[in-house]
């Protein structure tokens, strides 16, 4: 079976298409950054980053969210967020860092409050993170992302050339911004696992980009006498089936993870799904287009001649 009949000849890097892609990318990045800058709460940071208390409570019958909310407010926790978590009987309660409480007493008080007069209420999960740890985790996450991009730039530069490295990193930055922007626009919970997912997206998207670059390098040598643009276009077309198939298989498993993996892993799956769709797009358009914009050509990939004297001796 084949998804693409015969060879494709899509002009991915043609002037018009390149312009359209540029506009789409610029728009996506602008909207993402805009959402991150304009909104009061740019991201729904989990307590991993903000500090605070989180409770996952399992009730024996469908839970009455309103009642839980008012019970909590009556007990003095009027800043509590209460929401269903996956099923009707599961409830997630989140609180910002609380003042004047001993952590153990706070947990007991919350347990009493959310249980109310219902017996058999299960405290499935309790997390309480202090604000200073939250800040450290956020800093570590940001640092990890920057270091990953830096190392990748160096690797691609060594294996290929700086114009390719710039193209790859531009594509990756694009993917990261749009994925994080997606979480900002749709107010999805942003926790530590999402940071891990974004880093995995970097790995995946790069995977795609490097495979395309590999073919571009091969074709730069094989197909002489055609422009860099044409050569790159051919390469992307040749790799198109592979790009799509790997994208599909990865999306299959991620959709399985989203549907069956449970609520707490859902933000992670969403980040990867968005990231992989965006990453596939960007390795076709953004990465190669950026390298082309920087004037990449076959000469860039030739080994420099190490000993100039050698040339004189040639006939």
């Amino acid at each position: 079976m084949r998804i693409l009949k015969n060879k494709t000849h899509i002009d991915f890097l043609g002037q018009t298409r390149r312009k359209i892609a540029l506009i789409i990318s610029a728009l996506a990045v602008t909207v993402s950054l805009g959402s991150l800058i304009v909104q009061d709460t740019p991201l729904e940071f989990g307590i991993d980053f903000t500090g605070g208390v989180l409770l996952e409570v399992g009730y024996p019958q469908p839970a009455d969210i309103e009642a839980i909310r008012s019970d909590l407010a009556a007990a003095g926790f009027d800043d509590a967020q209460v929401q269903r978590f996956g099923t009707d009987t599961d409830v997630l309660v989140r609180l910002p860092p609380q003042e004047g409480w001993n952590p153990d007493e706070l947990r007991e008080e919350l347990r009493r409050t959310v249980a109310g007069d219902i017996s058999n209420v299960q405290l499935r999960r309790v997390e309480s993170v202090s604000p200073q740890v939250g800040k450290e985790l956020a800093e570590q996450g940001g640092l990890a992302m920057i270091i990953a991009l830096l190392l990748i730039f160096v690797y691609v530069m060594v294996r290929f050339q700086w114009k390719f490295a710039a193209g790859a990193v531009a594509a990756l930055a694009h993917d990261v911004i749009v994925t994080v922007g997606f979480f900002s626009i749709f107010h999805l919970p942003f926790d530590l696992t999402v940071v891990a997912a974004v880093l995995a997206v970097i790995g995946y998207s790069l995977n795609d980009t490097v495979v395309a670059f590999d073919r571009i390098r091969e074709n730069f040598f094989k197909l002489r006498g055609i422009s860099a643009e044409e050569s790159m276009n051919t390469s992307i077309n040749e790799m198109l089936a592979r790009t799509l198939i790997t994208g599909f298989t990865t999306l299959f498993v991620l959709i399985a993870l989203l549907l069956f993996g449970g609520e707490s892993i859902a933000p992670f799956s969403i980040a990867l799904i968005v990231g992989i769709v965006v990453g596939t797009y960007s390795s076709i358009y953004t990465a190669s287009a950026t390298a082309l914009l920087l004037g990449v050509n076959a000469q860039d990939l030739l080994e420099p001649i190490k000993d100039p004297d050698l040339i004189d001796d040639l006939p």
Partner: protein
Amino acid sequence: MNRYPAWLNVLVLVILLAGIMLALPNIYGSAPAVQLADVEGADITQTQLDNYLRVLENDGISPESAYLDDGRAVIRFAKGAVEDQQTAGARLRARYENESNVALTLAPGMPDWVRELGLNPMSLGLDLRGGVYVLLEVDMDTAVDNRMKGYEQDFDDRLRDARIRHRVDLNNQTLTIRLQSAEDMEKAREIVSGADSDVLIGDGTDGKSLIVRMTEAQIKERQDFAIEQNMTTLRNRVDQLGVAEPLVQRQGVDRIVVQLPGVQDPTELQKILTATATLEFRMVDTTGDMPGSRRYPGRGDEAPQILKREVIASGDEIIDAKSGFTNEGQPAVHITLDSAGGERMLATTRENVGKPMSTVFIEWREESVTRGGKTVSRKFKTEEIIGTATIRGVFKNRFQTTGLTPNEARELAVLMRAGALAAPVYKVDERTIGPSLGQDNIDRGFNAIKIGFLAVIVFMAIYYRWFGMIANVALFSNLVFIVAVLSLAGASLTLPGIAGIVLTVGMAVDANVLIFERIREELTAGAQPQAAINSGYEKALSSIADANVTTLIAAIVLLAFGTGPIKGFAITLMIGILTSMFTAIVGTRSIVNLVFGGRKITSLPI
């Protein structure tokens, strides 16, 4: 063409079999068990284990398996036999409380022959089996303060013995010793530097005082000591509470991670973990105006007293403590002091028969407060007199103290036995996962793996036909290898770890897709099948290597910077990338060569 030498095929087969063997213990899951460890830390012997089993046999409880593991006895029951486990636990605890710490736990459900091969399943992280994770921050300032207080008393005593008039103040980890004259100052300097040659001694601005501080190295040493001491204490406390497989680990400069798998109700445990309750014994200052004396409040009806500054014995000198009752039926803690504390107690009681001595109960309480718009936790110290008694006779290292509720007496006894914390600890991160959520996470995670895996193999089989089937074999072997490596490394599997495996399943086929697409290209370009296979594998190699190295970079960065959930994901992702390179390249080639190699074929089922 396309033949692997026999040794290479054998090697691939051996590696695959090794992987299957290492992964094998995991298919049996885990079962409820009781674990016994000697209180003193000695190894449990086979004879002891036989005794335990006899006790259980008398009660009609028959475990499925019983063995010694790393000096501890493990008695495992049938899967789901939680009732047996609990009865057995209670029975053994009642019988052997004084010699063994009894803990309820989960043990690998594998049959004895697998265990005897020395194989172990991968352990499950807290999010999968339930438990408590606590990140504690050690209050380093207090650790240093405590040491400075020791210096304060020591220097004060020495100067008094030398009959030099002085005043000592401790402020901000700096001792100021004020003296009468410059001459006294020089004498004092000699005495202080003679007592401890390492401290920094500077001159005060007025020419007749000394400023004493600890050096950076001393502070560092003191902090390291505080961390080490606290970790030992925490380990002891956890052991006393009967938690199986606890983990107490230093993290960074001033933090300690405590992981307690399988703990169901964390409240009591958490309280004991960070509790800093301790006792001090001081003489009452009957004159009320001795230098350094201070007024202490009494607890409840207990009268407040002015107590002398000198501590006769403190919590860290208590080597054993048992809760019990006095002859009059009051709750009491029976205390045994170490030799230094005992000597001091002997000397003090000998000189002070007929004079009153107080027992002070000291506790650090934690509360979060808002400072400058930020919520931070703060510890404050409460010191209360729980009892004052007239010394009736001379005693040394064994005595009892009263004035506590039975609960407090029991808790204090546990704390004293485990040793005091060298410095108070703050809880900065705490995660408790109930056992039901853990089981749900396991079920959901494995469901996701199964369904994702199924979707991929169906797709590959349809899309690449026989070659797709070969890739599927490689994909399945890859799963086996990931589990094998995790088991071998003793790493624990977490929910993000499962996510990493799922992602690997999706991405691992990439190498085969690259190879197969290349083979198809070669065929389209008119190559003969055998040549197409060969150049397909060869030409795809550099792409595969590049693609995997870049993902590996991301995984390594995650591993280096990540904590908790991120680390679990990074580890499985990294293992998955490495094992998939082997299965997708060498593994599939080996099968392709066996099936298609070395014979004349006109077309390929690809």
